[in-house]
């Protein structure tokens, strides 16, 4: 009670325009304490309210991205810009000797390539949309006639696991050069979708043209099995696994973000490593 009275007196003193007497040391002490605790309480309340605002902030409108709180999506997109500035194709993903590659390569998802769906790899052809109505079709044999690139690297999943895996196929940049798609590759994004359109990803062009990005048709020196995306899948080591689309049906190019399966469900669109 005593301190309250003192604080009250101090408050009165503070409200006077010209305090005539110097405050005693004890008064100064109490005054400072009072101010400090008030400020602390106000700031703590403010922080709590700020958190509540963020936590209860509305979900973004479903579009190319979705499923995240509006301010958090904004933060993800801003953070992407920061790290895209740092991105360099000179930064290669660490590679390992073949002996370290996992014999049993983890299968984590079958979205878009579900086993019950009818799919015949023999009749498959890669569809490259050059422009509306102008589609380039490429067979697996044609792809295999291009220079083959192998990579043994640490595949990383957003879930937190990683595994050293051995993939082989055509470097995406070789593919672009061979089919003279350079003009299309000047656009900002590549979009890829499974033949059934059930899974789809968008990759920023620098990551797609990264020297370790592959259109892969082999794993551990053998043709891809169906559950790893036969006959052709994307291996993009500078991205999390969610961007490594299995069973590529179509490839297209655009200057705006192509639709992306997991970005629609609250994940970062960029998902770069």
């Amino acid at each position: 009670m005593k301190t309250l009275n003192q604080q009250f007196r101090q408050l009165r003193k503070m409200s006077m325009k010209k305090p005539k007497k110097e405050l005693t040391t004890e008064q100064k002490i109490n005054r400072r304490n009072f101010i400090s605790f008030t400020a602390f309480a106000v700031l703590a309340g403010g922080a709590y309210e700020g958190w509540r605002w963020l936590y209860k902030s509305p979900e973004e409108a479903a579009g190319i991205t979705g499923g995240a709180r509006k301010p958090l999506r904004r933060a993800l997109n801003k953070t992407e810009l920061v790290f895209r500035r740092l991105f360099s194709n000179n930064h290669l993903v660490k590679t390992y000797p073949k002996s370290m590659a996992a014999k049993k390569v983890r299968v984590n998802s079958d979205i878009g390539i579900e086993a019950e769906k009818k799919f015949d790899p023999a009749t498959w052809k890669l569809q490259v949309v050059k422009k509306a109505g102008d589609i380039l079709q490429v067979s697996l044999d044609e792809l295999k006639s291009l220079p083959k690139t192998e990579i043994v690297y640490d595949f990383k999943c957003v879930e937190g696991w990683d595994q050293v895996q051995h993939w082989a196929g055509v470097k995406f940049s070789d593919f672009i050069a061979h089919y003279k798609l350079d003009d299309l590759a000047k656009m900002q994004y590549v979009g890829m979708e499974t033949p059934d359109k059930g899974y789809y990803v968008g990759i920023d062009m620098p990551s797609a043209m990264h020297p370790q990005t592959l259109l892969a048709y082999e794993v551990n020196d053998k043709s891809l099995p169906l559950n790893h995306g036969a006959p052709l899948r994307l291996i993009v080591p500078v991205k999390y696994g969610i961007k490594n689309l299995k069973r590529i049906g179509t490839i297209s190019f655009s200057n705006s973000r192509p639709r992306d399966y997991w970005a629609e469900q609250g994940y970062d669109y960029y998902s770069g490593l």
Partner: protein
Amino acid sequence: MRWCHWVNFPILTIMIWSGMLIYWANDEYSVTLFGHTFFRFFPDWFYNTLKIPHRLSEGMAFHFLFMWFFTLNGIIYILYTLISGEWRELAPKRNSFKEAWLVLLHDLHIRKTAPPQNKYNAAQRIAYTAIILMGIGSVITGLAIYKPVQFYYLTWLCGGYHFARVLHFALTLGYVFFFVIHVVQVFIAGWNNFRSVISGFEIVNENPKPAVQTAKKNEHEEA
């Protein structure tokens, strides 16, 4: 710098919470000795009580926003401590490790007297400096697993992607351990001490006339 301390508290809480939302998606760590698993991080009841499961994307979004604040606050704190010279009160001295043992014995009521101290005793110097280093460690290991390609040198420094994740996790456990001891000690130290951490009162660091204030207060206490 007490502002940084209080700003850090909610940020670190959010970082640990969102970190757990992420960890749940691949909770592979456990304490295993001689083939026997003593403890698995974390039991199901723990996850369910805290509503952790199936919130990976949410956890990542929060984690990758508040990492900025955590880092920024840490940088401000370190710069301030270095420039103001307050690090002298904080950094362990040559005899601190020996003295810290005596402080520990004293605090456990094994020994009656504690070594003389200034602002912080030897054990505090070590603990508080360690927590800052841990904070730096969390940022470095965090970057090593967040952008292992762009910051490949950090990942290398942390012993690879996989090990960096283990370190990042272990540091978080370290915070929780620190927090428990810290709070117990704050209770023991009493109200006056706690008040000073809010008001900056015992050791004035944001006051225009710190020397005068401190001196006067001491007089008052002695009177």
